[in-house]
């Protein structure tokens, strides 16, 4: 089992969609929200994803294909 800590950033047109629910339903991934800030225009959610590594990768790719930006929870690691 792998654990991945990620930050999802939602564009305005995805605010109303249950992306995290669908992620857990369509993939063998346990989603665990730890912090979030969502308003009517934008939003971010910090969550832990637990499951098989490939399944997590597939789930992340699916979320990205829906328009969610997925980043490491630490922010950008590459610095100047």
């Amino acid at each position: 089992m792998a654990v991945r800590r990620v930050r999802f950033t939602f564009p305005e047109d995805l605010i109303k969609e249950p992306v995290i629910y669908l992620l857990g339903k369509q993939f063998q991934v346990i989603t665990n929200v730890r912090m979030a800030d969502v308003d009517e225009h934008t939003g971010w959610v910090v969550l832990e994803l637990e499951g098989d590594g490939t399944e997590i990768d597939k789930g992340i790719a699916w979320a990205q294909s829906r328009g969610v930006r997925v980043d490491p929870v630490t922010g950008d690691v590459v610095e100047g």
Partner: protein
Amino acid sequence: MTAASSLRCRECQREYPLTATHVCEFCFGPVEVAYDYDKIRRNVTRASIQAGPASLWRYHDFLPVDRDAAIDIGAGFTPLIRAKNLGKALGLNNLYIKNDTVNPTWSFKDRVVAVASSRARELGFQKLACASTGNLANSVSAHAAAAGMEAVVFIPHDLEVGKVLGSSIYGPTLVKVQGNYDAVNRLCAELAGSYPWAFVNVNVRPYYSEGSKTLGFEVAEQLGWRAPDHCVVPIASGSLYVKIRKGLDELAKVGLIDEPKTRMSGAQATGCSPVALAWEEGSMNFRPQRPNTIAKSLAIGNPADGYYSLVQLKETNGACGNVSDDEIVAGMKLLAETEGIFGETAGGVTVASVKQLAERGHIHPDELTVAFITGAGFKTVEAVAPHLKPALEIDATIESFEAAYNAARPVEVAV
């Protein structure tokens, strides 16, 4: 003994021991070092600091490392210069430049890496690592060399030769990663989570970021133990911007300066401006960006301290510059031509932002303003080279020189 007492989550305030931890296990918020300020107050006076070394380690009482464990290659205690010429050009009567181009590897990253590498060694790490497009890699490589530690440095595959050489001279293991910015970032985040190395800006980040406070300490000391009225700081991850103010606050907390009322303004390039855009929109939520700017040392599209930067902008009544690549080049040239300081593109962002903020009335002409120039221009010659006056090419004769010189210089009009 250091006065650092614990790591504390900036969101839920939970406390952790002083280990290599950077994220709160409960809420995933960032953790930062907490101190016993009574202990610092008992140990430190202005005189004791002034008797210390001419490096950032003169402030070791405020840092999370024992003095004896410091890896000191001379980082910090850089000049604070009264920038009369630049001030005149920008209509500012009380402008100063904090010139951090003169650090050992020519950028302010030596401050953060000095603290991170020292703490990493204290914690028993033998390898230092980072993912970087330049300055950070240079500094990690140099500090590891001086400390006898191994360095593993990840860089994008298409980095300029000069930036690669600025690390490789110190003998690290250099790893060029294929792929776009997001791919490099994702890989390095995963590596940082799976190798028992000190990734300076990831698992030892709480210590790393404390190094930036020393810029605040130095400016206050160099101004005769007072806080400036206004600071203009380039924003990449936002850590530097936030920690300079923390440095001023800490000096006040232990009674070395009066309570600072310093306005903290930021500086970003339009090609990577998540904080500037959120500030302009009056939002506390920044939208991550894919960077596209010549100011590569500021190209962090998803800044770890972006939110805290927005909080500080609001709390201190600051403003955030947002400047184009052309303005950045003009800023680099203006700084060089007025003050004799060759800053890198990030310095161009700062100078151009000072200009923009002054023109828009965000900086009062009489405010004691400090602009932070964080890296040397030789790191980014590609950005500015095409915009400079070419050399005169002559034969080895007086006639050839005079013909070329007279043709090139401005016409002098007799009055």
